[in-house]
């Protein structure tokens, strides 16, 4: 009878201890399997949210941090507003390629085109062709005022130039011989650049000690900025340089370091890259006027959606600008980590 009693205490197939181990092993195997399967399924499963609109954004080039930021802003907006955006960008600035992309977008009957514009007849014709087919067009940073584009989003060029002038005045304390180096896309956006120079000049008009000595117009970007810098540096009495795009700014700063002119020449730049941030930190560049590319990108998507949904939006949006110098560099870096390599 004793044995029977003992047997009654042990009801299962296994002894309690063994049962525990087995259960644990089984559970472990199951959990591992489930976890692996789940991970697999999640990876396999791209969340599909059908988007309402297919927008087409053309960037001026695929290397300039400015345009990368525009792209980032547009991507974020697209995600937030649940639209799809297709990005196209020529390797380097090339308005012919931009025009081709506008044509493709029109042929592809996308829901909206966002592009930097050139105020020339070919470009205007393409924009008008698109709008004629019911495809709204928003111009970015560079406007084509004469076209039928629905809206322009970018910084006010005149204000940009004025801000640069003010920054220069702060740097040189009312006494300087200034050289202005224009961007290579002169023929494309001469209007914009001229507006900048206008703003720049009108700010310095009241300063008798400051004179714009020469305006350089480079033929091809990057390749001859060094040459231009050299020419500018050789020009007697020049102690300040204002550059009209980010690549030129960095290139000029590099040349100044190379020719050991740091501190002797004040550099006012345009745009921001991690390189420029570096030069500002080392006081090679006094400061840089920076547009808000991210805001441009973001607002363009927002405006386009407004056009699609409400058929109206403000025709010009100033995306604003800011000055980055040694004083607020750290703060800027903190707020815009995207420039870090």
């Amino acid at each position, binding site marked *: 009878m004793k044995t029977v009693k003992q047997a009654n205490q042990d009801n299962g197939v296994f002894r309690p201890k063994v049962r525990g181990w*087995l259960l644990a092993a089984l559970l472990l195997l199951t959990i591992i399997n489930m976890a692996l399967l789940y991970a697999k399924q999640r990876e396999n499963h791209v969340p599909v949210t059908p988007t309402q609109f297919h927008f087409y954004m053309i960037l001026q080039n695929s290397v300039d941090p400015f345009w990368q930021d525009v792209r980032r802003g547009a991507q974020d907006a697209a995600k937030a507003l649940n639209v799809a955006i297709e990005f196209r960008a020529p390797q380097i600035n090339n308005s012919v390629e931009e025009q081709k992309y506008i044509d493709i977008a029109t*042929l592809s009957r996308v829901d909206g085109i966002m592009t930097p514009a050139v105020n020339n007849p070919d470009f205007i014709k393409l924009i008008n062709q698109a709008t004629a087919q019911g495809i709204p067009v928003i111009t970015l940073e560079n406007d084509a005022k004469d076209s039928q584009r629905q809206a322009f989003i970018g910084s006010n060029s005149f204000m940009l130039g004025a801000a640069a002038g003010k920054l220069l005045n702060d740097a040189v304390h009312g006494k300087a011989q200034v050289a202005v180096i224009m961007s290579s896309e002169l023929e494309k956006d001469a209007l914009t650049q001229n507006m900048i120079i206008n703003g720049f000049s009108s700010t310095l008009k009241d300063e008798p000690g400051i004179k714009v000595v020469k305006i350089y117009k480079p033929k091809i970007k990057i390749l001859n900025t060094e040459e231009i810098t050299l020419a500018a540096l050789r020009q007697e009495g020049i102690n300040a340089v204002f550059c009209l795009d980010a690549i030129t700014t960095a290139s000029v700063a590099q040349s100044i370091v190379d020719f050991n002119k740091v501190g002797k020449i004040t550099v006012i730049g345009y745009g921001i890259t991690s390189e420029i941030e570096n030069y500002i930190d080392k006081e090679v560049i006094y400061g840089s006027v920076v547009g808000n590319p991210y805001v441009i990108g973001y607002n363009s998507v927002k405006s386009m959606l407004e056009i699609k949904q409400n058929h109206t939006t403000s025709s010009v949006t100033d995306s604003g600008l800011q000055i980055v110098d040694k004083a607020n560099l750290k703060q800027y870096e903190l707020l815009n980590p995207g420039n870090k390599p």
Partner: protein
Amino acid sequence: MNGKEFFRLSGLRKKLFIYYFCVIAMMGMTSYYSYYNAKFILDKTNTIFMDYIQLNQLYEGINALESNLETFLATQSSEALLNYYNANNRLRAITDGRPPSSLQDANNLMFADIYKMTENLIKETDAAVIAKRGRNIEEYLAHFSNSQKISGYIDMYINDLLYNKLATGSKQYETTALRMNFILGINAVILIASLLLNMLLALYLTYRITKPLVRLAQAAKSIAQEDYNIAAVSVGTNDEIAVLTQAFNQMVDSIRNHIAKLIQQKKTEERLREQEIQNLTMKNLLKEAELKALQAQINPHFFFNTLNHAAQLAMIEGADASSTFIQKAAELFRYSLKGLDQPVTLADEISNVQSYSYILKARFSDRVDVYFNVNELLLDTMMPGLIIQPVVENALIHGIEGLDRKGLIYLNVQYSAQNILIDVIDNGRGMNEQKKAEILAIRLDPEKARGYHTTGLGLRNVVERLMLFYNVSDASEVMEIYSQEGAGTRVVLKLPWKGEHDDVPIVGS
């Protein structure tokens, strides 16, 4: 076995079921995992290739459309037109077949562009064909160049898309290959783990399930070899085997009890039989004794009755002397018939000797005289019967008979501090020392003590009976013999005051 019974999961069945379930679940999970991985990889490859196939079809379709259009524009042949429309239909079928897909993905967006552009291309080529047939040269040239431009865009897009696909595909392949290795590793580990676990499980469960059976089998073997002294089998489970074991244990117990009972019974029977045999022997002995006793007693009784009758006859005839004589002889006989085992009083003994002496007197008239000198205080003393008469007879036969002079026998009974002393004195021939020593050297011999006749008892018999009666081992304690050859013999019987027998009264105190 009915259905209900079939699905009832009792003990052993449940164990086996759970075991199989565990194994199947484990192997199933492992296989499903492997299967899922394989399917996953296949799916991935499939989607990549599906896109390639579609792009290739598109590319070929557009090329066919373009070349057929060119041929038609150049030749205006109806065959070329037919070919063109065929190509056109094929291309439309491709673009119509594209399912609407999510637009979030850059590649999908490009796909959408390509399809839309293809639609526009078809429009342009159609317009070109119509213009050509309308012989509107300017218009068809414009549409043709437009179509060339669009197909150029499409080519560019397809190339871009292919490049993108290749780039993402190769990247995907790299990660997938890495993952594949990882997955294969995990697969192997899981496979080996489940194999090991299964093997352990199989070993353990086989052992677990068969152990009680093995124990039971061993126990059963022992029982079969008639070794019932085995411990109760304990299996430690709760299934049919446990029930079996319990039943087995009970059976062993029952068998053991049964065997014990059988042995007990057999012993009792043997004892009974022994007792019966003993009883039977005793009965036989008794019967034999009775027979002997009858043989021994028939004659004396008959003789005694005859003597009595003779005495009555003599009295009736008036022969008083003869009557008395026969009477005495009868008394003598009767006394001897009483049996030797009954104690008698001294008075009985004396009276018996007087009867005997009367007969002697009648037989030998004046040749022998018997004198009695008995202390009357001792007459009630108990003693064995037929003790004194044989001594007197012995004195007559061995002392007086053949004697020239007159024989005298004295019987004196007195007592001392220790004994009652019975003296039988004769003036006969006396006995030599050797005979005296022989009598006194008597030891008790139970075998020889049997079978003496009640008549004619010798001295030897008297001594033995006295020794028995008073429980002494030495003859000299009950008898003393004084003798001188030619002068006479004195035999002294010493009866102790107190013997073993409590019924011997203490006299004279």
